[in-house]
């Protein structure tokens, strides 16, 4: 069925609301629904694979929209965050490093984790795993100390994290 608002796109979002004691239902397309302030929480998992570009796009734009100061261009492929948002794809390996923070959030959103625990041919898993775990623990402690306003401890932890991360970079 067509969207009730724009009458152009397919209505994919069907909402039923109880308003002032009356039951009101809407049949809207994604764009009009968003304009009305409805965010599609569930999608029909029977119609498409869970992470279709449409859904990723939605998640990506949510995340990216909030950080408007992020410019940054990938040094290798010259991709901008906007390009990634539109295509739902990364331009090259370097993009993962350039936009590491956003990727981290994205992966945790769409996959539940951003932390590879599988194999890496060439280096034993435990070695890689061990460092990452350590960094995670240190970051937790850092947040705690900031909350407790123990800034000296926080600074020490931050330095420890930095040196561990550098060590990991070199190990690669």
């Amino acid at each position, binding site marked *: 069925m067509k969207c009730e608002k724009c009458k152009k796109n397919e209505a994919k979002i069907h909402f039923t609301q109880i308003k002032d004691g009356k039951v009101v239902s809407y049949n809207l397309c994604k764009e009009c629904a968003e304009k009305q302030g409805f965010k599609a929480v569930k999608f029909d998992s029977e119609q498409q694979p*869970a992470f279709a570009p449409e859904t990723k796009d939605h998640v990506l734009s949510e995340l990216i929209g909030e950080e408007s100061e992020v410019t940054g261009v990938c040094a290798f492929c010259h991709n901008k965050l906007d390009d990634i948002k539109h295509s739902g794809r990364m331009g090259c*390996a370097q993009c*993962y490093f350039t936009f590491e923070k956003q990727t981290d959030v994205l*992966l945790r959103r769409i*996959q539940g984790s951003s932390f590879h*625990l599988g194999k890496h041919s060439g280096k034993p898993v435990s070695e890689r795993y061990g460092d990452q775990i350590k960094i995670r623990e240190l970051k937790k402690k850092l947040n705690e100390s900031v909350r407790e306003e123990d800034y000296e401890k926080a600074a020490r932890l931050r330095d420890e994290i930095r040196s561990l991360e550098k060590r*990991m970079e070199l190990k690669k």
Partner: protein
Amino acid sequence: MDLLKNIKEVPAWLDASGEHSDIVLSSRIRLARNIKGFTFSTKIKPEEEEQIRQEVLAVLDREKPISGMSRIDMAELKPFECNYLLEKHLVSTDLLSHRRNGSVIIGDKFRVSMMINEEDHLRIQSIASGFDLNACWKKAEALEELIGKNLEYDFHPKFGYLTSCPTNTGTGLRGSVLIHLPGLVLTKEIQKVLRGISQIGLTFRGLYGEGSEVLGNFFQISNQVTIGKSEQELIDHLVQITGQIIEHERNARAILFKDAGYYIQDKVWRAYGILEYARTISGEEVMNLLSAIRLGVSMKLINGLSVSKINQILIFSQDAHLDVAAGRSLDPAERDINRAIIVRSYFSDTEKKEAKDE
């Protein structure tokens, strides 16, 4: 392209030799990798794609890890030849529609196929008959490691193996099973089962992968998550859930046999009759009738027709297979006639056992 001349060659993974092969048609493991130093598929230039192809082929020629290896370049194929590869599960729709510079390396009696320059630079795929994901994983892993020793993969210390699409990052592993669930469909429990699996990190699709409808009660179940768990954990999870689904399906079939025995028998034998005698038949009808036949064989209602033969009919009655057999792109009417001929040929050399069934 000599591969296409051997169209009668039956992929080893259709031989129904694996466990539970009356319910699970095949198992598949796919690994996605990108080669360091090149852009990903959305931005890659043709010269880069050519270079990647040359480098990968050089490694394969040198190390020879795949038996009976053939190479096919997409640019040299006609559209119906491309679809032929798709029907044999050797390539994806992505490789066909977007990658003029794509290639596929096939070997080990069609059990190994490696796509070059698809959504990722390298997509290693291993298929096995029946329910045997671990066998596929062993083969795929071995191939991935061998190439990885010669070419460096894109890797991030936290995110793991880097892929064009973030939905594959980490292990780059997609495991899937092709499963036949007529019991659950007929007992109307299929919706519940499918909803259940989408809530635990698995996804399902129709018989031919992404973007296809469900035909003939065949489903493809695969993992959704590729990061945060080890490869073995992902595979074990899929194995465990598939095992449960198989049990549900067997239970459903037992119930059907007990409570609706004649209805099922009727469905099965009508299908048998049509397939054996029809003069023109559509691909969709064949799929649906084969579903009933498969059920009939599994429930021991039909003798003399093996699951392996049914698998073959399934593949060889497809559109592009008929085109390749005829050497040209057929029009739908011709195809339906040829399809009926092929199907009848499979039935004519099976012993008829209906008389003895009473």
